[in-house]
């Protein structure tokens, strides 16, 4: 795991920054609203505790209706605004760019099988070049799993009988944790893997080396009786 703390988890993909701005923005709004409610409750309980000298006159009749309408409409527009922010962020990242590095992922109880574009295979590990849009083409052989890389703020359920895609652009070299996020039985919590993001040159060298190793292995197997 590269960097990051519990409060500020590492961002390692292009979209992650925008998601975090939305998240921290919503945290800010939530803290503000919670504080307002807490101040109102604690303030009123203190000011209007039994026996305090504060005024207890009745409120004018119209007051309640006006206040209700103001905060209903206010809340409505505030929520629509937050929805708008979240929805646009979601929609602009919906379509991957035209040219992506396509990697095939097959999930099964309890492992991730990865196939690079050049045919190199990995288990519970995935090597990726930095700053390159990656598209995962995923399916499951048995139950529903979920491909989850927190550092990329990316998650997609992997469903048997369906092909699901997920795309992101890693932008930080390092190793990141891959976890299964959909409960899938006995080995669910051990269905972990490692994503290694390398420089483009390192990735090219790694691909070539693995490809050669795989060919040697295939050739040897071919010679065997």
């Amino acid at each position, binding site marked *: 795991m590269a960097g990051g*703390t*519990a*409060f500020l*988890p590492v961002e390692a993909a292009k979209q992650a920054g*925008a*998601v975090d701005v*939305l*998240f921290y923005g*919503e945290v800010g709004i*939530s803290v503000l*609203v*919670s504080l307002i*409610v*807490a101040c109102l*409750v604690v303030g*009123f*309980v203190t000011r*209007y*505790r*039994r*026996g305090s000298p*504060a005024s*207890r*006159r*009745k409120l004018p*009749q119209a007051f*309640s209706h006006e206040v*209700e309408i103001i*905060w*209903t409409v206010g*809340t*409505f527009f505030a*929520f*629509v605004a*937050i*929805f708008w922010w*979240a*929805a646009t*962020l*979601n929609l602009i*990242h*919906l379509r991957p760019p035209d040219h992506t590095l396509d990697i095939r992922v097959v999930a099964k109880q309890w492992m991730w099988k990865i196939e690079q574009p050049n045919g190199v295979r990995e288990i519970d590990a995935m090597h990726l070049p930095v700053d390159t849009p990656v598209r995962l083409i995923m399916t499951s052989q048995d*139950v529903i799993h*979920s491909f989850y890389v*927190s550092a990329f703020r990316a*998650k997609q*359920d992997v*469903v*048997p*009988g*369906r092909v699901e895609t997920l795309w992101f652009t890693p932008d930080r070299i390092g190793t990141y*944790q891959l976890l299964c*996020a*959909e*409960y899938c*039985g*006995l080995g*669910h*919590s*051990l269905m972990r893997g490692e994503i290694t993001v390398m420089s483009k040159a390192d990735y090219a060298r790694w691909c070539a080396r693995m490809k050669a190793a795989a060919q040697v292995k295939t050739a040897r197997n071919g010679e065997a009786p």
Partner: protein
Amino acid sequence: MTDIPFQSLPEAPRAPATVKSYLDEGHTLASWLFTTDHKRIAILYAIGITIFFFIGGFAAMLIRIQLLTPNGTIVSPELYNRIFTIHGIVMVWFFLVPSIPTTMGNFFLPLMIGARDVAFPRLNIISFWIFFLGALFTVVCIVSGGVDTGWTFYTPYSTLYSNGHVIAAAIGIFIVGFSSIATGVNFLTTVHTMRTEGMTWFRLPLFVWAMYATSFVMVLATPVLAASLLMIVAERALGMPLFNPHNGGDPILFQHLFWFYSHPAVYIMILPAMGVVSEVIPCFARRVIFGYRFMVYAMMMIALIGFSVWGHHMFVSGQSPFANIYFSFLSFMVAVPSAIKVFNWSASLFRGSITLEAPMFYALGFVGLFTIGGLTGLMLASVPVDIDLTDTYFVVAHFHYIMVGGSVSAFFAGLHYWWPKITGKLYNERAARLAALLMFIGFNLTFFPQFILGWAGMPRRYATYPPEFQLWHVASSLGAAVLALAYIMPLFYLGWSLYRGGKASANPWHATGLEWQTASPPPKDNFAVPPRVTHGPYFYHADNDPSQPTKNAS
């Protein structure tokens, strides 16, 4: 509320002192087990859900002990999976869904509308037995055979891959569903047909409105749960390929059906809590509830919109991205009436004359914790944030803030508020306040660290976990120990009050609901003479409040 004229407090038709209370109408076991008195049925339910609460709570303690260390402290992953399953199933279906409606709803709905009983007393006792036997059967199946699917029963894991007594558990929950439907039908009919003279719709206490909205959801949503559980049995027992993709089934179909029930079920759990809090806050603030009609409309809107937000559980399931946007929008909309309610509860304190007895402590705790639960719900309704946070501890923390911080706090608020009426005894106020305080602190210590865990990337339902998450798991487990103590305390001081508690008067809190205008505990037929209602339910203004010294009125 403001358009309802406030007249002088009517002469309460009190039962003569010689009338026997419902507790004295027969002391045999059969007089309890086969009773048709809504108040006795409420007590039976209360005993039932208390048993299930502590079974579910015991499972929760095992979970928190297991997660003290990254590689699992006490049990194997196999057993851990069964433990979180039993925790979820028992707490959702055998505690939270029935909790407030079947106990306080059964006891007080007829009293609050001035009725002698519910509309169908025999259906009421039958629904208790369906609930209790169905739930007991399910728990025995899970404990003996082990079910490891989680309470959500996601397919095709539950139908093709899981070992254990999935079929039996599904049948048990299927059966318990009938009890929910029967209770819903009973309450709807009671509210429609049995309101006493003068009890117009807009004079109903908000607790009654909450029961009414909840009953609608129960009646309309529960059949869908039954249908989806039946499909699990059909695939698992008969091999019908309903969800198995290799024979043309659709694994996602189950999630749609399941959440079509289980999201409205969240409102079955929280609407009654809102009702309880709306009774408690005006009483201890000595103030009319702020915006009564808006409170009613808000509850009905929550019940209604609640049926169209289920897809927000499925943002990463592979459903259409535009479906995600649709469900996201409606999830924001269902939060509007919830926010209005929080503002109204806060505003009800304005110009009050507030005292902080235990019920008020719990009710104010509810307002705070529900607010945090609701706001984190908005984050989860935002698609990009949810993609990161769904199936992590952030979601676990969020729904525990709503269900434990919200519903369970409200349950305790109602329990303490109405305890003198139900039992005729006064509990120890000091012990109750201490328990309320411990519950609030313990709850936050347990579940706030889980927000941090989720944001740091810790998935749900992990028997073992990467070591960097340990600090927050330990914090959460320590909080759970405090919470457990706070939940055990009421057993002792409430139990003690039954034997040694002072005798409660008919109206120890000087509350204005009809339920306080009969003896404590009430006679079997509730009221000697059916009461007549001439004003709204919250008659607490300082200038006509009998509990108030006059110097505060101006």
